[in-house]
């Protein structure tokens, strides 16, 4: 019996893409509800009144919000293939690295992307320091999850397409193959994985969108 699954998302949100990836890996069918963040629907405000954001997963009409919470929910309900490791210590580590991505890597990458000149130079150092930790984590593994894509890989999935898009726009290498060989390989492997590949939003649209975002930030800068 098909599950009653709906995913409220935007076409480009990297957080929503995490859920898309997870649902695909689990082989789950769902209906997409596209949202416009400039004109939030009554449904979105009803199902996520606290944050008013996407993604929201509706399962049998009940909303689950926050992408990492949604990933865990999906993994708890549909057990195969597993996204999180079984061992409690490894599970804690998988969660830790996902949090690290959201708390450190993403904001620092964003700072580099939305700045220029001296501000950008100052942001690059901390970003690189944090990428070193990721590089370390990939030693001896194909994916953060081991031999197969797992929770942490999906959490970092935004790097799979967004890094090269941001690099193209700012004309700066963020993940250099020489400095971060394992991370570079991971980005390509994740990005090209047959299950993941079909889910990427159109690249030209993404470049256009993020160019506009960068310009807006640079205009606002003091």
């Amino acid at each position, binding site marked *: 019996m098909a599950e009653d699954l709906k995913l409220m998302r935007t076409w480009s949100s990297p957080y929503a893409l995490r859920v898309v990836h997870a649902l695909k890996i689990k082989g789950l069918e769902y209906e997409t509800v596209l949202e416009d963040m400039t004109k939030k629907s009554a449904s979105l405000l009803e199902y996520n009144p*606290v944050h008013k954001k996407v993604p929201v997963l509706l*399962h049998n009409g*009940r909303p*689950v*919000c*926050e992408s990492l*919470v*949604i990933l*865990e*929910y999906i993994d*708890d*309900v549909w057990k195969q293939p597993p996204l999180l490791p079984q061992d*409690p*210590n490894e*599970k*804690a580590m998988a*969660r*830790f690295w996902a*949090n*690290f991505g959201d708390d450190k890597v993403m904001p620092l990458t964003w700072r580099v992307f939305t700045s220029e000149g001296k501000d950008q130079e100052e942001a690059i150092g901390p970003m690189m320091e944090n990428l070193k*930790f990721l590089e370390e984590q990939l030693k001896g593994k194909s994916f953060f999850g081991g031999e197969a894509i797992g929770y942490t890989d999906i959490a970092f999935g935004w790097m799979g397409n967004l890094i090269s898009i941001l690099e193209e726009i700012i004309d700066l290498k963020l993940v250099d193959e020489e400095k971060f060989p394992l991370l570079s390989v991971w980005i390509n492997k994740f990005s090209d994985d047959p299950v993941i590949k079909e889910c990427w939003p159109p690249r030209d649209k993404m470049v256009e969108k993020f160019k506009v975002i960068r310009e807006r930030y640079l205009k606002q800068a003091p």
Partner: protein
Amino acid sequence: MGGVKVLGLNSSFPCVRVLWALKLKGVNYEIVEENLLNKSPLLLQMNPIHKKVPVLIHKDKPIVESLLILEYIDEVWKTTYPLMPEDPYDCSMARFWAKFVDEKVVVTAFEAMKSEGEGKEVAIVAAKETLELLEKQIEGKKFFGGDEIGYLDLVVGWICLWLPAIEQVGGMKLLDSSTFPLLYQWTQCFVHIPAIHECLPPREKAVDYFQTGLNYLRSLDASKK
């Protein structure tokens, strides 16, 4: 199951969350008191990335971040006192609200504590808005976990002692019993549970902890000017 150590200090509520969980599960542990102004080599070794407490050391392996430690404890010591709900949807709700507590309730309370002048009033309103949402969550329930305390109660637990300490240091009132009767009632029930009560530091220690932190932040701001 191997010796359990907690690197932390009992004036820090993320650390006390961990102690509460271990106490409820009946797990023996040793606290290794940390001085956050002079972090031990062990802390820097066990949490090299964030260099923060709490750290749980179990079978010589570190687990960091209080919310992750709570889930780890629940998964390892499965048979006594379950902390997470059984149902996956209830679990997702608990995790959602736990994130909300740490990312919004705690942060806005600190902002209100630190703010001065006009900004303070704005910050106080923002903090109270987050407490309103928690008030709604406890409606119709004795505890966030239901009839017994669970994971989310341990996460919210800081409001029973540390929030009053923050209020004192910040010279403000956030959680008053007339505006938030249910949340206030919850604190009274929570604090009387023996396992919870045993791990509470003296209120002055919590006040001191936040006052020291605030003085430090203000001295940093002053040196930047």
